[in-house]
Structure formats: C-alpha cells, structure tokens
C-alpha cells in the first residue's frame, strides 16, 4: 500500500538515484552550495523583491538578454569543466582510472549538448535581445511576453540538463543520441529522457524566439530602413532566425518521436518492429546542419560589425555579404547527409551532398575576403574585439579547409567518427561562434554598462585562448589521421597516441588560464568601473545602438530615428549634424512586467521532471498549468503601460543627453 503511494508520487525515482560517484557528487554539491549561498545572500540583503521586479518578471529585451548571457556563461564553465575531465582521462590513457566508461560517456554527451544548446544558443539569443531592437531603431521586440516565455523555457531546459548531477544519470548516447542506442532497449535509465526533455523544452523556446525576432526585424525597423539599409548584424540575425523557423520544428518532431518510442513503445527508430534508426539520423541532421549555421551566421554578423567599426571604414561588399548570408542559409538545408556518408546511400547521393558541401565554402570564402578587404587601407585599431576577429580569421579558415577536405566522400570514409572530425567542428564552433561571442562581448559591453572592459587583461585572455586553442585541437587533427576515433575512454599504449593527447590536455589547461583572465577582466573592470567610464559611443560606431545612452533607457529611443542610407549614424556624425535627437517627445507604450513567463517556465520544468521520472500526476499539473497560464495571458488586454512625453523628457534630461 505504502509502496503504491510512493510509486504514484515519485514515479521511478528511488533514494539510490541521489547517490553518485565522488566527481559527480562534488559537482552536484558545488551547484547546490552555490544555489544555497545565492539564496542566503538574496535574503540577507533583502534583494528578492528587486530580483523579481527588475529581472525575473521583466519584459525588457535588454534585461532578458543579460539573463541569457549570464546563464550561458555559467553553462560555459560547466561545459569547460566537462572538457577538462575528458582531456584528463585521455591524456592519462584511462589507466589512472579517473573516470569509469559510463561516467566518461555521460560527460561527453553532456559537454556537447550543453555547449550547443545552453552556451552557443544562449549567447546568440542574448545578443539578439540586446542588439537587434537598438540597431533597427525599435523600442522593443515584436512580442515581449513571448520573449520572456522563450527565456524561461530555455532556463527550464538548463535546469533539467544539470539535474543529473544531483539526481539520476545523464544520457550516455552522445550529444545527438543516435538510436538504437538511445532506445529503451539499450538505455533503459532516465539519462536519455533527461536529454530529450531538456532539449525539447529549450528547443521550443528557441523556436518561439526565432519567430519573435524574425517578425521584429521585418515589422519594426525605423522609418526609411529598407532591408538593404539594415546593419549587417541584423541581416545575419534575419537569416539565422529564418533557419530556426525551418529547422527547429524538425528537432521538435524528431525528439517527440524518440520519446514516443521510449514512453509508449512505438517503433519509429527501434531495431525491431520495423523501425528505421537511419530515419532518425537523417531527421536529426536535417535540423543539425542548419543549426550549425544558426549559430555561426550571427557570429559572422558580429565580426562584420567589429571589423568595420575598428577599421574605421564601411563594410566592404555589403551586398555580397547579404547574398552570401542568404546563399549559406539556403545551402545549409542541402548538405545534411555529409554527416553520414558511411550510411551507404550510394555513390550518387554521396556525390550530390559532397558537392553541395563544397559549394557552401564559396559564400563563406566571399565573406572572409570581404572582411580582409574591409581592413585593407583602413585605420585598424587592435582593441580586444579586433584581436578576437584576427584569431577567428585564422582558425576559421583552417577549420573550414578541414571541412572541405571531409566533404570529399571517399576521404570522409577515413575521417568519419575520428578525432579529425572532432577537431574540425571545434575549430568552427569555438573559433567561429565563441570567438564571435567574445568579440561581441568586448565590443558591446560598454553600451550596456557605461564602462569598458580592461584592455590589458583582455589581451592576456585572448593570447592564452588562441595558444591553448591551437595546442588543444591541432593534435586532434593529427590523432585523427593516426586513426584515433572519437569518444575513447581508453586506448592501447602501443598506438603511440599519448604524447599528442597530453599536448591537447595542456592546451585545454592554457584555455582555462584564458578563461581565468576573462573572469578576472570582468571582475576588475567592474571594480575599477569609474576609471573606464565612457559616453554613448566609445568606439566611434556606425549603427544606431551607439546613438543612444550607455546604458540605454528602457525605451531605447526617445525619438525614433529616420533612416535615409546605410550606416546612417556614422554618416550623420561625419556631417557633424550634432545630436540626432529632436526635442519633440511623444508618449511611449512599454509592456508591463509579467510574472506569467517564469510561471510557464516552472510548469514546463514540472512537466519535464514528470515525464522523465514517470510521475504522471505531476505531468497533468504541468500541462494544465501551462495551458491555464497561457489562457490567462492571452485573454488579458491591458498588458502595456504609457510613459507620457513629459516623463520621457524628464528621463532624457536626467541622463544629460539633451
């Protein structure tokens, strides 16, 4: 009787699920400890109300953007810790007995999933939130509440993917959970369910956010800003969100089908019952390859902004940049099969996808040349954003060439699943997306804080990163040639691989020094913020975000600017028109705060926990909660409040702009 009640309440959760080996338990305790410290701190300093009113319930995209970035930074540290463990295990050849095979598999699965979904995606959406409205001369995004829901779904997914450190286990099936390994027959535990539902919930958030920014860009540009007058970052965001809209529904459907296999005994991808595991692999890469471009296109956009701002020139070949973005976006849906040339689709199919993959290198090459020509004859300032850009150009070109090498199907039969591949995609995603994020961080940081980051520490961080990065990944290219496959938790010493693995380990250690300098840079810059105060336009920028105060007011623009040409702000500065601002203010409508976004996130989290642990009562609670909260929000009409023209004028006066 008691057992029945316990089973009903807790599903398949048992006390033993809380027991972990020392490394995982340590990480779990550290996380819970940090959480408890944060709660004590908030209570002691009486900051709960502040946190709730100013951050959690805020619908201001700038606040939501900062929260995205904060979560991503924490997840980056988690993913980095995972990487350290993986490198340590391989450098010691597994003989030190650092990690068990099972634990090693959980770590590489978590490392990949977290880095893509909760670091890279989080950074991209954080930057979208912070930059897009102010670059297109808008006060807000198209759907502010939806934006909050997206973030809290992302946060719920983040909690779910970290929960296995405390309760249960994570997936051992890799970051894409190929069946039949990820099916119930071979992975009966909760690991794959954790993976599915954290990605599913965060993925739906990403999809909604993609729709939101797509509409924002199409409908909310300042008067006169035609598509071809948009800053190039906005173009990159438009193509990226376009890809999100086409790719993420495929992920939702695929994860849904895998989950139905596991929960309801269906046979989509099982080895029995007529299921077809290769269908899963096709579907997941039909999402997965565009996903890579969803991440890297905004990074291209950031670099385009950085390189033209720090070269003091307009971007070379704006039109060809836009065409290249569109070409990459369209081609990205025609190459997915190159992830599994070895599936056996036949020579014709492999040839088609191989050629399409090579073609995608052309628009990317156009972009690289445009960036270089932008610097040519420019007055280049080597501030930290520019350093990250230079590092990116080198590593990204190297990694891109490795990619072209692998796009040749017969060659790929050798590289498939080898460390060469691992080195390739890390060069693209670290050297492309992450360096882009770092460049953007240093570039836009003063806009949202009012002070710059310390340059010297930024340089230290960059040099540690680039040296560590090359040391960590060049050996992996070589190891790949030597036949080392990915995901090895031990190997025979006679292979002669250990030396290179040790070098790679040292590389990651140097990257950690770089990360240390970045954290130090952030802390030191905040501490010394009064020495580094800058005005609204510290870099002599080109687009509209530099025309408003740093940090910007909640409404961004007191008066919406009018656009007649590309780089309007830059051209106006050249003509010395002085202030862009007219003294005529009007009433501004801003969204009221809403606590319903975080509540929807909480119910989604409950739903996720329920479906993972088979607590069916909680599943109903979560589902009904989400639906009821949505109905409450969708049927409420007064969701905005007015800021009168007089109040706007007062705000602007206080900031000393007028």
């Amino acid at each position, binding site marked *: 009787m008691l057992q029945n009640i316990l089973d009903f309440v807790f599903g398949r959760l048992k006390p033993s699920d809380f027991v972990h080996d020392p490394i995982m338990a340590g990480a779990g305790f550290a996380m819970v400890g940090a959480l408890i410290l944060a709660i004590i701190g908030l209570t002691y300093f009486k900051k709960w109300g502040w946190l709730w009113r100013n951050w959690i319930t805020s619908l201001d995209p700038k606040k939501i953007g900062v929260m995205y970035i904060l979560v991503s930074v924490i997840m980056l540290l988690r993913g980095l810790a995972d990487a350290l463990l993986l490198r340590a295990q391989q450098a010691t050849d597994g003989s030190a007995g650092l990690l068990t095979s099972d634990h090693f598999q959980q770590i590489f699965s978590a490392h990949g999933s977290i880095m893509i979904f909760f670091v890279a995606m989080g950074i991209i959406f954080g930057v979208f939130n912070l930059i897009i409205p102010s670059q297109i001369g808008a006060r807000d995004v*198209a*759907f502010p509440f939806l934006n909050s829901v997206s973030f809290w779904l992302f946060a719920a997914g983040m909690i779910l993917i970290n929960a296995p450190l405390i309760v249960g286990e994570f997936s051992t099936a890799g970051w894409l959970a190929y069946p039949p390994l990820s099916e119930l027959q071979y992975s009966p535990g909760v690991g794959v369910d954790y993976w599915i539902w954290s990605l599913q919930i965060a993925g739906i958030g990403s*999809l909604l956010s993609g*729709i*939101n920014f*797509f*509409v924002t860009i*199409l*409908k*909310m540009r300042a008067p006169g800003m035609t598509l071809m007058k948009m800053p190039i970052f906005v173009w990159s965001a438009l193509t990226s969100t376009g890809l999100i*809209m*086409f790719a*993420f*529904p*495929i992920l*939702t*459907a*695929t994860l*849904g*089908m895998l989950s*139905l*296999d596991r929960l*309801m*005994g*269906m*046979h*989509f991808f*099982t080895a*029995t*019952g*007529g*299921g*077809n595991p290769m*269908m899963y692999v096709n*579907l997941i890469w*039909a999402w997965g390859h565009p996903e890579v471009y969803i991440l890297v296109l905004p990074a291209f956009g950031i670099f385009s902004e950085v390189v033209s701002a720090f070269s003091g020139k307009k971007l070379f070949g704006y039109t060809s940049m836009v065409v290249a973005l569109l070409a990459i976006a369209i081609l990205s849906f025609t190459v997915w099969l190159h992830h599994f040339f070895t599936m056996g689709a036949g020579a014709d199919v492999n040839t088609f996808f191989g050629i399409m993959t090579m073609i995608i290198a052309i628009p990317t090459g156009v972009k690289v040349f445009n960036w270089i020509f932008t610097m040519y004859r420019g007055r280049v300032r080597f501030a930290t954003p520019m350093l990250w850009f230079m590092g990116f150009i080198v590593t990204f070109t190297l990694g891109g060439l490795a990619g072209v090498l692998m796009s040749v199907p017969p060659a790929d039969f050798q590289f498939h699943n080898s460390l060469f591949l691992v080195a390739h995609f890390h060069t693209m995603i670290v050297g492309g997306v992450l360096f882009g994020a770092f460049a953007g961080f240093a570039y836009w940081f003063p806009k949202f804080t009012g002070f710059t980051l310390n340059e010297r520490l930024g340089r230290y961080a960059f040099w540690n990163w680039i040296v560590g990065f090359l040391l960590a990944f060049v050996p992996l290219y070589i190891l790949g040639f030597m036949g080392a496959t990915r995901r090895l938790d031990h190997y025979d010493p006679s292979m002669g691989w250990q030396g290179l693995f040790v070098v790679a380990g040292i590389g990651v250690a140097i990257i950690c020094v770089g990360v240390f300098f970045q954290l130090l840079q952030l802390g030191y810059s905040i501490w010394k913020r009064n020495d580094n105060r800058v005005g609204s336009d510290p870099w002599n920028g080109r687009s509209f975000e530099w025309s408003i105060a740093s940090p910007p007011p909640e409404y961004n623009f007191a008066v919406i600017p009018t656009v007649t040409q590309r780089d309007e702000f830059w051209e106006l500065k050249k003509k010395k028109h002085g202030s862009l601002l007219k003294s005529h203010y009007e009433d501004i*409508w801003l969204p009221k705060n809403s606590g319903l976004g975080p509540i929807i996130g909480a119910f989604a989290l409950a739903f996720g926990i329920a479906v993972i642990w088979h607590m069916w009562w909680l599943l109903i609670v979560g589902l009904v909660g989400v*639906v009821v909260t949505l*109905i409450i929000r*969708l*049927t409420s*009409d007064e969701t*905005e409040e007015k800021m009168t023209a007089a109040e706007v004028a007062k705000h602007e006066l206080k900031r000393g702009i007028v």
Partner: protein
Amino acid sequence: MKNVIEEAAVQQKKTLGFWIYLMTDLVLFASLFATFAVLRGQTFGGPSGHDLFNMPFVLLETMILLTSSFTAGLAILGSNRGYKKQTIFWLFVTFALGAAFLTLELTEFSHLVSEGDGWQRSAFLSSFFTLVGTHGLHIAIGLLWLAVMIIRLIRFKFKQTDLNRLALFALFWHFLDVVWIFIFSIVYLIGGMA
C-alpha cells in the same frame, strides 16, 4: 489606450507572427509526413493501411472537417459585418463539427487498438498514430481556443481585440483543414492502396 494606427501595427505584427508560427507547424507536420512515407511499408508482418482503413468512414470525417472550415468562414463573414448572433451561431456549429470530427477519430483509434493494431504493433502504425494523432491534438487545442473565444465574445460583447483573435483562430482552423487534406490524400488514399 493606444491610438488606432498603433493598434493596427500591433495587429499586423501578430498576424505575421501567427502566419510564421503556422509555417513552422507545417514543417513539423512535414517531418511526420516524411517519416510516415518512409515507414509506411514497415508493417512488420502486421496489417497494412489497405487492411485497416475504412474509406467511407474517413470520407465522413473529411466532410465534417471541411464543413467546419466553411462554417468558421461564415462566422468570420458575420463578425466582419457586425452580425453578432450569426457569428456566435456559426462558431457553435464549428465547435460541434470539430468535436464530432475528434470523436470519430478517437473512435477509429480505439477500434484499431481494440483489434490489437495499436501503435506498438509496427513502425507503420506508430507513424500513422503519431501523424494523425498530432493533427487530432491540434484540433483539440483549436476546440479549447474556440470555447474560450465564444465565452469572451458573448461576455465582452465583441471587443475589437477579441475579433482580432477570432481572425487568427480562423486561420488556424483553415490551416488544420489543409493539413487534413494532405493526411487524407497521403495517409488514407495513397497509404490505403494495396
């Protein structure tokens, strides 16, 4: 209150956003259609579509759903001209037809399951239940939406914001109709061939 121009701009954004949402939903259905197309022959020794589908029954379902789309259109026409009673009437008819469709679909499902041809039987049946069931789930959500709409329209006497929502609902309902036409053609007509 905001001025009329601003309100219209808000509604434009919502309409575009909703259209884009519908297109993403279409991609989701496309993934399920592709899966069905691949797994259609994978009956694993069990029954095929030809053995299972009762075409007159499915035709009845189809006609009911198409009619409900028509009545939803009549409701929109009524609301555009300010005929409140007609609008409510046609919305009730739409609801009744949608509920009838859903009931018939569930009847078909429970019949299949009771015959031992549930979703666990074969990959073909898994993909069939998931594709058709996902459409049914959308219909159920649409019915919930419609119920809330009817209550609000009556209670708040046809506020402009509710009329805007009604227009989006009609889009949703017609969209589900279009998806059903594809289900009817691909799952039942082509999938039911010997």
